[in-house]
C-alpha cells in the first residue's frame, strides 16, 4: 500500500545500494529494493545507481524502462492487477476488465481520480485453473466474478 512507502531519500537510497552492490548482477535487486521501499524508482535514483555500479545513466535508464514492473511515479494507494492472458480471457476476464475500468472511471494502466486504485494488466498469475484472476496489492484472488470484483473495488476504494 502506498501509505507504507517511505518518501524518496538519498541517504536511504545510498544505503540500499550499498546493501546489494557486491552481489553478482546487482542492478535488478537494487531496483526491486527501491521500489519496495519507495513505491517507485525516482528519477534521481538513476545517476545514483549509475555512479555506484559504474554504469552510464543511459544503461540504468534502459533497464528501468525495459521491465514492466518498475514504476517511475508513485501508484495509487492500491494496485489492482487484472489478468489479461488467454486462460482468463477464456473464462470471461475481458468483461471484468471493462467493468473495473467503468467503475473506477479509468483505463488500464491509469489511476482512479480519487487516487485510490491503479488498474494494471498482468499477463498470467499462474492461477489458470481458477480463472479469471486478479491481484490486489500482492493478494491473489481467483474465480473472479462481478460480485467478487465489486467487493475488491469497494475494499480498495474505502
Amino acid at each position, binding site marked *: 500500500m502506498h501509505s507504507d512507502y517511505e518518501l524518496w531519500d538519498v541517504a536511504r537510497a545510498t544505503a540500499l545500494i550499498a546493501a546489494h552492490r557486491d552481489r553478482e548482477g546487482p542492478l535488478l535487486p537494487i531496483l526491486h529494493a527501491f521500489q519496495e521501499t519507495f513505491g517507485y524508482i525516482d528519477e534521481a535514483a538513476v545517476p545514483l545507481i549509475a555512479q555506484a555500479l559504474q554504469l552510464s545513466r543511459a544503461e540504468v535508464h534502459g533497464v528501468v524502462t525495459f521491465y514492466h514492473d518498475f514504476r517511475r511515479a508513485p501508484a495509487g494507494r492500491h494496485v489492482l492487477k487484472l489478468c489479461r492472458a488467454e486462460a482468463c480471457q477464456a473464462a470471461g476476464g475481458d468483461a471484468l476488465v471493462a467493468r473495473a475500468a467503468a467503475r473506477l472511471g479509468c483505463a488500464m494502466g491509469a489511476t482512479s481520480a480519487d487516487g485510490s486504485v491503479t488498474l494494471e494488466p498482468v499477463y498470467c*498469475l499462474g492461477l489458470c485453473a*481458477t480463472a479469471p484472476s486478479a491481484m490486489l496489492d500482492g493478494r491473489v484472488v481467483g474465480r473472479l466474478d462481478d460480485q467478487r470484483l465489486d467487493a475488491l473495488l469497494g475494499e480498495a476504494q474505502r
Partner: protein
Amino acid sequence: MTLRVYVPGDAGAVAVGADDVAAALRAAAQARSVAIEIVRTGSRGLYWLEPMIEVATGAGRIAYGPVTPVDAASLLDAALGDGAHPRRHGVADEIPWLKRQTRLTFARCGVVDPRSLDDYRAHGGGQGIAKAVSLGAPATIEEIVASGLRGRGGAGFPTGIKWRTVAQADAPQKYIVCNADEGDSGTFADRMIMEGDPFCLIEGMAIAAFAVGATKGYVYIRSEYPHAIAAMRAACAAARRGGLLGRNIAGSAYGFDIEVRAGAGAYVCGEETSLLESLEGRRGIVRAKPPLPAHQGLFGKPTVINNVLSFASVPIILAEGAAFYQDFGIGKSRGTMPIQLGGNVRHGGLFETAFGITLGELVDDVGGGTCTGRPVRAVQVGGPLGAYFPRALFDTPFDYEAFAARDGLIGHGGIVVFDDSVDMARQARFAFGFCAIESCGKCTPCRIGSTRGVETVDRIIRGEDRAANLAVLEDLCHTMKFGSLCALGGFTPYPVMSALTHFPEDFGATPKRLAAAE
C-alpha cells in the same frame, strides 16, 4: 489426540479462500476444545476442488472440497465423528482424477509440508543426490542422458546432453540457473513445485551442480509469483541448515549454494539468454546463439540453464534409475509430463501422466469439458506461442513430435480451453499484440512484425480487402517464423496461423481458399 488437518498454502488455493478456511477451522476447533494441527501444504492440483483440505485418519487422509469458511464447523464435526459430509471425497489418493495420474515429479506436491526438510526426507527426498554422489559425476550425467529427459520448459532439448556439454567445458566457475519465469498463460506447474515441493527443485539443481562442477546456482522467478519466491527463499535457507545446500552437500566434499532472484515483469525473460541478461542486471535482450549458454552463459561462464520441471524430475530419475523413468512415455518423449488444464474447463488442474495420452482424453475426459457447459471449440496448447487446436485434432497424442507434426507444440504443457463463444480472429490479434508488448526489440521481424500483425488482423476483422490482407498475414507469419531471433517472434505465428487454418470462418475467409493456399 490432536486432529491433523492439511490445508493448502498454494497461491491457487489461497486465491479461492484457503487462508480463510484455515482460520475458520482453527476457530471451530477452539470452540469445541479440540486440539488441531494445521499443516499448510502445496496443492494436489485438483483446483476445481480447491480449497481442498485433508484430515489425517487411521484410514488415510480424507479429502474435503471445495471448502468454504462456512463449512468449517460441520466439516470438523464430520471429521471427528468420521461421518458423512457433502464435501467429502474419501481418501485423497483414491480420488479417480488423482489416482489415474502417474505422479513422479509431483509425487510429494500437496502431500508434504514444503517448509520441512525432515518431511521431504521422510517422503523419499534426498535419495537422488545421495545416489549421484555415490555414482560420481560422469555416471550421473549418463543416467540423465539415458532417462531420455528433455527440457520441460518447452524446447525439449535433451537435458543430459546439455549437462554433458557444461561438464566438458573447462572453466574455473560454472553456474546452474533455474528458469522459473513461467510466463505462459495456462501453466502453473513450476509455481506448484516451488510452493509445494521446493526441496525437490533444490535437490535437482544440486545434482546438476555436482554433475557438471558448478558451485553457484540461481533460481530466476517471475515477480508475478510472490508466494513462490517466498517459498523458495525459505526452502533455500532450510536446505542450508539441513545440509542439502552449503559447503558439504549431502555429506560430500562438494559445495553448492543457490540464490533466488525475482524477475520484473518481462515475458521475454523466459527465453534463456534473455533471462541470463536479466540476471546480469541488463535489459532482457535476447542473445544470438552461438555461443550456447553451455559454453558461455551467465557472466560468460559455462551454464546449465533448465526449467523448474526439468530439475524437479532429476531426483527421481537418480533415485529410481534411468530405466524406470525411460519406461514411461512414447517415441522420443520419455517419462511423464505434468500437464496443466486451465481456462474455461470444468476440472482444471495439474495432471501428470506419461506422454502419449491424447488431447481429446485430456480435454473431454480429464478436464470434463468447459466450465460454462458450452461445447469446446478450441484449445491452445503450450502457452501464448502455442497453436490453437480444433476438436478435429483431438486425436493428437501428447508428445513433442506429434504436436510438431501438426504445426503445434506442447511447450510447457499448458492447455487452455475455450468454448464456442471464442472469436479466433480476436485470439490471433491478441497473439500479435502480446508479442508487440513483450518483444525485447532486438530483431526486426518480432519488433515490427508483431505490430504490423495487429494492424493486418484489424483490417481483416473490419473486412478491408480480405484476400490481400490474408496474404499479407501469411507472408508476415512466414517472415516472423523464420527470421526472428528467438521463440517469441518465431512462434507467435503458431497461434495466428492455427487460428486462421482451423477457424477460417472467423476471419471471413472461405476454407477452400486456404486449402488451395497450402
